């Protein structure tokens, strides 16, 4: 299978700290892959390099063959990469519907003058955008909450709205940064189904950062493990689960007797 995104020897430094160190990475088209690793392993920095928030100091990132490491975030978004955030970053004072409409920005072309004049084209375009936004709202089970301010939505709904907003940019590659954070087992189960549906129904490639091992192991076709900015392992969920370096990275030396599930629970406790 062809790869939709290829990262070659990507390095990002913050002062003396090497957040991402010469990471090679590949995402096959229409796959669901994950990056895992302990806190501070450089996962989110790597995400930021892909979406243009951080410019890598070295290396190359190719998206469908085009180098993107020097592009601005808005240009990268136009190529077809969208993301969500570890701590939800919705436009809090805007309604759910408006949040999604902002996501459609790149497909709307009305100039300020034609918007003021209210030309038939603009009216048509806006109506189309509104229909699409409502469809996306339905898609993430938020029917009827279009007029609610984003900040007043419950936590789970905010997570879903953020995904809907990302979907509005019609991405080919969707980056989800800890989508199951703060969810109970039942909700994470639903999320797994939902992510599969994104891939199967919409043909979107999904890259996850995730701490929730049940989600990661259940959904990923391929897993990459980062620790201190370096890639220490990659492979199928099964391979990762039994990889001694991974267990060591998570639990420290000599703790290999504990399972990873408990390690995750400990992490959650710490986070809570």
């Amino acid at each position, binding site marked *: 299978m062809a790869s939709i995104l290829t990262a070659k020897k990507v390095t990002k430094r913050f002062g003396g700290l090497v957040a991402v160190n010469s990471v090679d990475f590949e995402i096959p088209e229409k796959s669901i892959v994950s990056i895992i690793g302990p806190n501070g392993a450089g996962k989110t920095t790597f995400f930021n390099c892909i*979406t*243009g*928030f951080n410019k890598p100091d070295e290396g190359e990132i190719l998206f469908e063959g085009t180098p993107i490491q020097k592009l*601005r*975030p*808005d240009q*990268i*978004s*136009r190529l077809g990469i*969208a*993301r969500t*955030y570890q701590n939800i*970053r919705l*436009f*809090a*004072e*805007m*309604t759910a519907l*408006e949040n999604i*409409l*902002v*996501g*459609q*920005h*790149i497909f*709307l072309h*009305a100039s*300020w003058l034609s*918007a*003021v004049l*209210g030309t038939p084209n*603009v009216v048509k375009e*806006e109506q189309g*955008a509104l229909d699409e936004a409502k469809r996306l709202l339905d898609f993430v089970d938020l029917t009827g*909450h279009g*007029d*609610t*301010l984003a900040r*007043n*939505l*419950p936590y*789970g*709904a905010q997570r879903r709205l953020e995904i809907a*907003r990302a979907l*509005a*940019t019609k991405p080919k590659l969707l980056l989800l940064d800890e989508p199951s954070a703060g969810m109970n087992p039942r909700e994470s189960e639903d999320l797994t189904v939902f992510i599969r549906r994104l891939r199967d129904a919409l043909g979107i490639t999904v890259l996850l950062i995730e701490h929730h091992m049940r989600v990661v192991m259940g959904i990923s076709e391929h897993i990459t493990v980062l620790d201190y900015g370096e890639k220490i392992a990659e492979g199928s969920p099964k391979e990762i689960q039994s990889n001694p370096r991974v267990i060591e990275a998570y639990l420290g030396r000599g703790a290999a007797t504990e399972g990873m599930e408990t390690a995750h629970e400990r992490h959650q406790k710490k986070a809570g």
Partner: protein
Amino acid sequence: MNEITKENFLWSALKIGLLGGAIALFICLIGMTEIFSKRAVIEKVITLGQFVLLAISVSCGLIAARRTSQLLRSPSAFSGLTAGLVAGLTVGLVLALFILAGDKINFRAVFLNASPALYKVLTFEKGIGGAWILPAAGAISGLLGAAFPLIPTSVRRPLFHAVLFLFFMALFSGLFRVVIINQGEKGEKIAKYLFGQTGMTVPGASIFFVLVGAISAFWSAFGKQIKTSASNLPKGGKIGLRVVAIVIIGIIALGLPRVSGPFIAQVIVIVALYILMGLGLNVTLGFAGLLDLGFVAFYAIGAYTVGLLTSYGPFGMQHISFWAAVPIAVLVAMCAGFVLGLPVLGVRGDYLAIATLGFGEIVRLLAGSDFLINYFGGPQGVIGIQKPCIGVLEAFTKIDVPRMCRGIELKDPQDIYYLAIFSAILIAFVSWRLRESRLGRAWMAIREDEDVAEALGINLIQTKLLAYMLGAAMAGLGGAIFATLIGSIFASSMQLIVSINVVALIIVGGMGSIPGVIVGAIALIGLPELLREVSEFRYLLYGAVLIIMMLVKPEGLWPSQAAKRELHHLDAEAGTEL
């Protein structure tokens, strides 16, 4: 147990009274009482100064009574009235003590306004012996205040409205008098009956009191019925009702400057110009969240462009008509917005405020500088700006001679009024359309979270620049009208305080809200202009209003639609959860 609480409620009444006394003393010592005493609420009965002091002791009585009902387990009418009496008496005693002390000590060395005139006002011109009147008046008014909640609502509300209306009539009576006198001989007779030289006459005040009281009583009795029957109308009827309302408002708006005379028309024009500036800043600050403390620069640029292009004075570069100059002025202001926008694109928050503040000062200093005196006239400014002409403008002949207008020349503020109002309505419409467009959403997204907006494909550079440019264009239009209204422009009228006023009116009105800009401009610019008596205390009141607003209603007088929609939504779906 009961003994302790009883002491408590009297003590609290005393504290409220002391606080009220301090406020009253403050008002006296800043000179407000003295100035307000020249203006009567009802001639020969009560002056505005006395009215304000009475209002303080009445409120103290009211608050003390209310406080008592909270403090006591079994509050009675008697305890409330006692508390009111104590509070009102205390207010009066504080002032009386001040008078007695003032007889022995010269306060004037420190407080300039502790003048003999003030003592005269406070003692009702009876000398030191009149000091006892104040505590008595305080006690009675405190008692009245405490008795106020005991009156049934159906009487209380009309009474309150009527008194409030009398207060406003007292503030504006000079204006009303002039307006009515302007309506010819009959008007003069009516004006003389209703108003004296300094305030309302006794019959005038009684007429207003009864009229407003009756209307208020009628509305509280039948208002609900009228409202429900209006909302039960068929769709056609509702539209009809709306059309009738719009027509009535339109007729009032068209006729107002003719009826009211030039002064009020000029004030309305100034308000409209501030609305234009406010709408402009509302695009950059309210929508896109880009603070601009030098907004007056664009106003100045619009004004100078029109000035230089149309002036028949020595600095007129071209002598084109106002109508041809306006689009150029708007365009030049837009370019200035672009020029300001470019360097400050990467600057955020506090730094942005400082950078834009610098821009505003640079423009003002350049316009008034000796360096460019041959172009902008330096401190003398640009004079002889052509008035707008609807019709044919004859060719320019020579310097200092205006071009002849064959047709209607918009000479007076009363004529410019229509231009200003039309522009304000037009720009409000443009703002509204922009807000509802993809661009408006992009601006709001940038305001909320710049990084996320960029990650969704919004080009920050283009979008921010456009916000600066369109905002500047609106202010430029305001400046253009200002130039032709005054007929001359001076760099010294483009002060920082104008920019601050615009920011303040947006905050008071409600960030990002278009009606908020209008309400804010009327409240912060229009009212102080109309209230000449208050103008001396303008910035004092201004500061007080801003602080109170931020504490009580931080979202503004008329918050933006999203906030309202949300409240409505919560009301409709109270109790339902996702």
